């Protein structure tokens, strides 16, 4: 089974600071890491690989090589970075367009796996949109692959209130839910051995080289303002009888819990 895994390098922090003037994420001095959600996809791919291969694909600056290398240390056979100044400033549409172009350039595959979202963008749209561009079926928030035979994959999908079982023809794209497995750790042995190759592709390598479809110029999303959420530190202190009921009513009123059973 030949599997592609989409990965992304994200800031290694839980508190991303936003420049209040420019509205741009402050990335300077913040260490990067592989998007934690992608690790579940990569682990799933390595488990399914068999005699096939696992290849990772990312769009990003040349520094994204670090993330690709990390995937290789975990067991991926190789990786490709889609890197070009013209890809910069991409929204979800332009990003998925770029990834789809990269996938076409890489050639044949049986399955594409991605994390359900990234910890910096949090849109959860890039995977499914890429599948649409490629004209292949997809399923999001996959909890488990229960069967893989006769050119089809059967998956259980987390629909929040219910679990849906779907059967999709290959090739298809799946986004893996959080905590569906325990990702293996990167291997120093693979690191010291220099295993795996990393390629870089840019716009000139694509079949479709129409610049207006990529990066900022291919992005219909216009960001008007980015701002950090306000901190609410208001405290309410109660004393006396029936505090449990009061707390429930209070939370229900503010729609933090759902009323009625």
């Amino acid at each position, binding site marked *: 089974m030949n599997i592609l895994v989409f990965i992304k390098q994200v800031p290694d922090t839980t508190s991303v600071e936003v420049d209040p003037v420019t509205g741009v994420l402050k990335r300077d001095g913040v*260490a990067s*890491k592989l998007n934690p959600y992608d690790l579940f996809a990569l682990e799933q791919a390595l488990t399914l690989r068999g005699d096939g291969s696992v290849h990772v694909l990312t769009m990003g600056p040349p520094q994204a090589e670090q993330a690709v290398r990390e995937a290789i240390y975990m067991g991926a056979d190789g990786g490709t970075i889609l890197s070009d100044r013209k890809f910069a400033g991409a929204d979800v549409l332009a990003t998925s367009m770029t990834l789809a172009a990269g996938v076409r350039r890489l050639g044949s595959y049986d399955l594409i796996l991605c994390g359900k979202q990234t910890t910096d963008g949090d849109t959860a749209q890039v995977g499914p949109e890429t599948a649409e561009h490629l004209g292949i079926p997809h399923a999001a928030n996959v909890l488990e692959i229960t069967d893989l035979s006769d050119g089809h994959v059967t998956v259980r999908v987390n629909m929040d209130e219910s679990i849906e079982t779907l059967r999709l023809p290959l090739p298809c794209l799946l986004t893996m839910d959080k905590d569906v497995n*325990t990702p293996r750790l990167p*291997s*120093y042995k693979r690191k010291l051995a220099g295993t795996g190759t990393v390629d870089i592709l840019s716009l000139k390598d694509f079949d479709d080289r129409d610049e207006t479809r990529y990066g900022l110029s291919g992005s219909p999303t216009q960001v008007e303002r980015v701002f950090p959420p306000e901190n609410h530190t208001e405290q309410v202190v109660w004393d006396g009888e029936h505090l449990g009921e009061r707390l429930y009513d209070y939370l229900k009123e503010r729609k933090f819990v759902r009323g009625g059973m």
Partner: protein
Amino acid sequence: MYKTVTPEDCAYFKSIAPGRVWVGDEIAEDYHHDELGGITRAPDVRIQVLSTEEVSAILAYCNRERIPVVVRGSGTGLVGAAVALEGGVMLDTTAMNRILELDPDNLTVTVEPGVLLMELAAYVEGKGFFYPPDPGEKSATIGGNISTNAGGMRAVKYGVTRDYVRGLTAVLPDGTVLELGGKVVKNSSGYDLKHLLIGSEGTLAVITRAVLKLLPLPSRVVSLLIPFPSIEAAIGTVPEIVRSKTAPTAIEFMERETILFAESYLGKKFPDRASPAYLLLTFDGESAEELERQCETAAKLCLSPERGALDVLIVDTKERRDSVWGARGTFLEAIRASTTEMDECDVVVPRDRVAEFVLYTHEVARLTGLRIPSFGHAGDGNLHVYLCRDEMPEDAWKEALAEGFRLLYTKAAALAGQVSGEHGIGYAKRKYLASQHPAQVSLMRKIKAVFDPHNILNPGKVV
């Protein structure tokens, strides 16, 4: 003999701690034992204290009336030190849980004894500081940590609780309040009573406040999980790592069996379980380059043909640390969940004898018919060895346990080790301490008599 607590005594306690006194059946079963169980006795009165003044008044009263007093924090001890063997009063310090001051100029934090280790760690780390002692039981109180001189995972590089106590406020049995040490860094002013109280397990005085030393928080931390083909190969590598001058903060060893217990206990998979034995190293530092150099040196050393590590796995993000260290933190509970009853041995041996001792536990398992899983701090020589009853009948278990302990403590003494590395002596390990160090225990008894002439503080413990 001690006086039996009367309604008049209780009325006095209630006048000192109104609404915070529980008597007889009002005392929950939890307060009859510590975490290991086995040693059980209900206190007659449980008093939740809030201040040094309350502790002083209650102690002076009990000293006068000859009522025994035992201090209890979270009750996470493993040797029965916080069990009211003689009944009497239990001073519960858990409500004295305020962090009083963080002093960035003197690099200290001042706390009440009921603050939990995890609360302290989160508080100081949130402000960019570091309290290095890191015992596995994060819900233990600081008062308990000081009373046992708790150690933990980072002892290899940073030392133990004793190394981070700058000052103590403590109350003697007659109610006298002592201020020992303080925010001073140096102190050569007479006998160091502060250090005498640290590790005294509530037998000399009651600690009501502590000034703890802090360090700047290291900005980067990386662990390496290193699989080996055998426990001998894993532990045999430890002296090489110590000698390599890479200065790990922690060197833990674990066997596959323990990892499998933790998986079933947590319902969560460990990132690797293919190998019979593992070492877990942690490095900290300020720059990525410095850490990379330490990790690479250790990795190459372990992967060399002489040491024979199967791989070196990198634990470098919060998610990866949680998956590995989260499991490590549950080993004790996981082993307990795997058996019907167990007892533990927390010996410490010189670091270069750890391998020999661990292999000897396998021999003891064979000789006694007990299952004896172990894990521990290979880097500081402190091992946690668990003797598991499983399906053994009561009489056979008692006999096998006694024989197992006898063999293990005799071996530890022969290797120039000590009875307890960090859990303390309490009630359960008293006879092993007395037999290994009769002259020292005799001196300890005299010291105890000076502090506590009526023997009201935690009677039947340590000495």
